[in-house]
C-alpha cells in the first residue's frame, strides 16, 4: 500500500514535470535552442502566485490566470529582446544568453525573497482524501491532474489548431514555412510565450502543494533537461511520458535510497542517456 502511495505521488509530481518540460521541448524542437533559464521561469511562476495571494488575496483561479499571462509576456519579451538576436550569432552568445538570464533571475529572487523556503497559505483545497486505502493530499492531486490536462491541451493546441500547425511548420522547415506566408519570427515569439507560460503555470500549480525557495529553479531546469532528453527533443508527448517516468523514478529512489538520492538518480540517468540514446525515447537527434 505504501508503495502504491509512493508511486501515485511520483506520478502526480511527474505530471508537473511533464507540463513544464513540454515548454522546453517545444523551444528545442523549433529552434534547436536550450533555454537554460527555463527552471527559473517555473520558479517565477511560484513566486508570482505567492505575490498574487499575498497582495491581491486571490485564490488559485486568479493566480493561475495571472501567472499564465505574466509568464507569457515574459517569454515573448525575452525572445524579442534577447533570443532573436543571439540566434544568428555564435554559440557563446546563444548559451550565455539564457545562462546569464538564469543567474540574473535566480539571484535576484534570492536577494528579494531570501533563501528560506516558503509555501502558499492554506486554502479550501487542503487536507487529504482516502482513495481505496491510499491517502492522497488534495493539493497535490489537483495540481497533478491539472498539469497533465494542460500538457495534453498544449499538445492538442500544437497538433489540432491552425496556429499550432503554423508553429510546427516553422519547426519543421523555416524556409518552406516562410514561402507559405507564415512569419517565423512571430511563431517563435509565440512559442516562447507558450513555453514560459507552461513553466509558470506548472510553478503555480506546484506552489499549491509543495514548499519552495529560489534554488528550485536550478533543480527544475535540470529535471527539464533530463525529461526532454529522455522523451526526445521536440516531442511534447515524449515529454509527457518522460515527465511521468522521471517523477516515478524520483519518488521510488527517495523511498528506497533516501531523499538525498532523488536528484542524484535523475542526473545519473541523464549521464547514462547521453551514452545510450541521446535522441531520447521518441525524438530526433
Amino acid at each position: 500500500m505504501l508503495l502504491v502511495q509512493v508511486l501515485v505521488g511520483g506520478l502526480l509530481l511527474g505530471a508537473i514535470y511533464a507540463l513544464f518540460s513540454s515548454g522546453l521541448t517545444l523551444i528545442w524542437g523549433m529552434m534547436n535552442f536550450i533555454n537554460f533559464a527555463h527552471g527559473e521561469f517555473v520558479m517565477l511562476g511560484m513566486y508570482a502566485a505567492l505575490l498574487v495571494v499575498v497582495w491581491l488575496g486571490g485564490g488559485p483561479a486568479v493566480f493561475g490566470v495571472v501567472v499564465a499571462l505574466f509568464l507569457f509576456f515574459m517569454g515573448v519579451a525575452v525572445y524579442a529582446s534577447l533570443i532573436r538576436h543571439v540566434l544568428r550569432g555564435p554559440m557563446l552568445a546563444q548559451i550565455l544568453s539564457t545562462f546569464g538570464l538564469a543567474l540574473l533571475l535566480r539571484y535576484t529572487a534570492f536577494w528579494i525573497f531570501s533563501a528560506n523556503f516558503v509555501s502558499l497559505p492554506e486554502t479550501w483545497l487542503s487536507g487529504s482524501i482516502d482513495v481505496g486505502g491510499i491517502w492522497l493530499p488534495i493539493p497535490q492531486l489537483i495540481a497533478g491532474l491539472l498539469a497533465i490536462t494542460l500538457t495534453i491541451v498544449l499538445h492538442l493546441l500544437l497538433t489540432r489548431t491552425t496556429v499550432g500547425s503554423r508553429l510546427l511548420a516553422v519547426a519543421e522547415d523555416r524556409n518552406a514555412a516562410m514561402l507559405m506566408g507564415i512569419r517565423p519570427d512571430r511563431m517563435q515569439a509565440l512559442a516562447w510565450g507558450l513555453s514560459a507560460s507552461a513553466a509558470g503555470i506548472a510553478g503555480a500549480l506546484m506552489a499549491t502543494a509543495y514548499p519552495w525557495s529560489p534554488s528550485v529553479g536550478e533543480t527544475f531546469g535540470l529535471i527539464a533537461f533530463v525529461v526532454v532528453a529522455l522523451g526526445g527533443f521536440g516531442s511534447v508527448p515524449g515529454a509527457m511520458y518522460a515527465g511521468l517516468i522521471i517523477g516515478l523514478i524520483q519518488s521510488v529512489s527517495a523511498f528506497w535510497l533516501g531523499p538525498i538520492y532523488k536528484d542524484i538518480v535523475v542526473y545519473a540517468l541523464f549521464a547514462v542517456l547521453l551514452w545510450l540514446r541521446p535522441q531520447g525515447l521518441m525524438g530526433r537527434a
Partner: protein
Amino acid sequence: MKRLSPTRLGFAVFAVALLLYPLVFTNPFFLDIGVTFLLAAISASAWNIVGGYAGQISVGHSMFFGLGAYAPLLFYQWLGWPPMAGIPIGIAASVVLAIIIGMPTFRLTGHYFSMATIAVAELIRIFTGTWDFVGAAIGLQGPATARGWWDLTFRGETPYYYIFLGVLAVLLFITHTIERRRFGYYLRAIKARERAARSLGVPVLQIKMKALMLSATFTSLAGSLYAIKTGFIDPESGFGILVSVQMVIIAALGGAGTLFGPLLGALILIPLQSATNTWFGGGGSGLTYILYGGIIVLIARFEPGGLFELWHRVVAKYRSRRHAA
C-alpha cells in the same frame, strides 16, 4: 633593431608588473587578491581553450576543477601523501571525465554539450556531498603545518603567487603555441563553421576531444593549486556552479578565443568581486551574482567577443574615420 609594437611593449610592461607585484604590495590583503587573480586567470585560460577557441561552451567546468581540488587533499587525508602527489591523479580523473562527456555529446549540437556539462557537474557535486569517504558535506582539509617543503604549506602567500604565476605562464605559452599551429587553425574553423571544416578534412570529433582534454588538464591543475593553497575543499567550493560561472564570465568578458582575454577579464572582475564583497558584506555574494548574470547577458547580447573585440571595433572605426577625413 626590431620595432617594439605597442602590444609587445604593453605585454612586457604587464609581465614585469606581475613579477614585481608581491615585492611592492606586501600587504596580505593585496597579496591575496594577486593570488586569487592568478588562479582565476589560470582557470579561465584553461576554459578558454575549449570554450573560447573551439567554441564548445562548457558551463560545468567546475567538475574538472573540483576533481583537481579533491585529489590532493583526499590522498593526503587518506594515505598521508604530500598533496602535490594528488595533482596527476586529479588530472587523470579529469581527462577520463572529459572523454566520457565529450565522446557522445560532441557528435550532437553544441547546446547538448553545454547541457551535459551542467548536469554532470551537478551530479558530481551532489554525490560528493553524500559520500563520507570524501568528507561528504564537510569536505577535506590539507596539512595544517608543513611536514616538509613538499607539502607546499607556506605561511605567507608569496611562494604561492610565484608558483601560480609560473603555471599561468606555461599555460599561456602552450595556448600561444596552439594558436600558431594547425591545431589552432582547426579549432577556429570548427568554431566558425563546423560543417565546412569537416568538408575540408578537419577531424572534428578528434580536435574537440583534444581541446576538451587539454582544457580539463589545466582546469584540474588550477583546482589542485587552489586546494593546496587554501588547505580546504568542499562540494560547493569544488564543484559548485559559481566556480563554473566565474571561469566563463572572466574569459567571456575579456574576450573568449583570445590569448589575453581571460587575463583582462580577471584583472577587472577579481578586484571588483573583492570590492563588492567588502561593501555588501554577507549579502554581497548575492548581489555579485546578480551583477554577473547581468554582465553575461549583456556580453551575449551586445559583444560576444568581449572587451578585446569591442576594442578592435572601436579602433577600426577610428582608423577608417581618419582615412576618410
